[in-house]
């Protein structure tokens, strides 16, 4: 019943909850409880998560994340923040308060990637239309988030720009529509393209350059409990100087690329192996090279139209 749930932005005491007992909210299949002692950071968290449904205090919380000072003195003196999620050996590093939102986002990425083994997880953008999901795996910086966000505001429903969550038993992808992490040039490209969309402010000098978060369309959040079956697998590559083309992958190559994009296939063992080989045998896979976002969107639409299952 995500569609009828109360949203964080309609919660008058959201800031107090973040400052104290914790703000519980849902993103896709996960329930998160976040706390944060920094007022400015609380406002920035609420700015990008305002459209998400509030959880109930009785909900089982998957992830508890506190975004607090790196050390006590760092709360006031040259403040920095670090995420704390009750996990030993978590690789979280202190970040300047000015880019503290990244601490929460990086922590959520890490927590899902290392613990959500009810899903076979792919490092991938995922969008869906008419109950059919397109998996778009790719390394960081290859244009995956930009293409995903372009599609998500051009008739497709955002599942994720970061993780494809595949349930091997149900053979369905599950949405995890967190704010889209746009980087560097794509922050201005998307801001110009989507003047009415909700963006965070730009975060400069992050470990990945300039980052700006793009909030999903409300429909994507309202429908985030609705999974979709795979239809086609695309490996996008933005290259403004290359010839645009779609190259169908041979099955062994496709399997190797799917496997290398999986975050937890080793932990999923035989279940993961069978899911990935089934996926390889059932769906077509293409490497797509595109010179512009519009061209990329057009190619995805055409390939799904022509080859989607």
């Amino acid at each position, binding site marked *: 019943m995500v569609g009828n749930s109360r949203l964080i932005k309609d919660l008058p005491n959201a800031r107090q909850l973040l400052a104290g007992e914790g703000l519980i909210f849902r993103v896709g299949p996960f329930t998160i409880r976040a706390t944060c002692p920094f007022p400015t950071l609380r406002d920035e968290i609420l700015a990008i998560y305002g459209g998400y449904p509030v959880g109930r205090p009785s909900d089982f919380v998957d992830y508890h994340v506190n975004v607090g000072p790196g050390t006590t003195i760092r709360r006031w003196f040259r403040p920095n923040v670090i995420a704390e999620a009750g996990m030993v050996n978590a690789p979280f590093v202190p970040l300047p308060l000015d880019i503290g939102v990244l601490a929460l986002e990086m922590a959520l990425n890490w927590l899902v990637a290392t613990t959500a083994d009810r899903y076979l997880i792919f490092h991938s953008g995922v969008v869906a239309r008419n109950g059919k999901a397109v998996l778009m795996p790719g390394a960081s910086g290859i244009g995956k988030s930009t293409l995903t966000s372009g599609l998500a505001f051009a008739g497709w429903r955002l599942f994720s720009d970061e993780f494809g969550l595949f349930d091997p038993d149900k053979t369905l992808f599950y949405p995890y529509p967190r704010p889209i992490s746009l980087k560097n040039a794509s922050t201005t490209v998307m801001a110009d393209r989507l003047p009415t969309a909700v963006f965070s402010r730009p975060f400069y000098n992050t470990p990945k350059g300039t980052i700006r978060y793009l909030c999903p369309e409300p429909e994507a959040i309202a429908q985030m409990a609705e999974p979709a079956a795979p239809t086609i697998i695309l490996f996008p590559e933005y290259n403004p100087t290359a010839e645009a083309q779609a190259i169908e992958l041979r099955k*062994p190559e496709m*399997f190797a690329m799917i496997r290398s994009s999986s975050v937890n296939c080793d932990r999923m063992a035989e279940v993961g192996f069978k899911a990935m080989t089934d996926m390889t045998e059932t769906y077509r896979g293409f490497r797509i090279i595109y010179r512009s976002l519009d061209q990329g969107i057009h190619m995805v639409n055409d390939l799904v139209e022509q080859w989607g299952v």
Partner: protein
Amino acid sequence: MRLDIQNARWCIPAGNFAVWRELNDISVLFDRRSGQTHLLDAFARELYDLITEQADTAPELTSRMAAILEGAVDPALRQKIDDTIAEFDQLGLIFPELTEPTL
């Protein structure tokens, strides 16, 4: 110490450890013991099947493979068999059968 590929008698580990899938001309093997996935081309798969059928030394396997390929036992085939056996061994997909030491 590296085992002598020529003299060892190579066999497949016991137990139901291998899950196979065929993707075009490539065999994909998931090893339940190690959790590793291996891609085998047609030659490697044929050799693995030969060892599965019957444990053998490298020279014997070379002869059996030559018969299947309907060709001669030439140095190139011998080398390819040795290399593939070494790789299988390294990946833990085969092992040398233990024999009683000669007194």
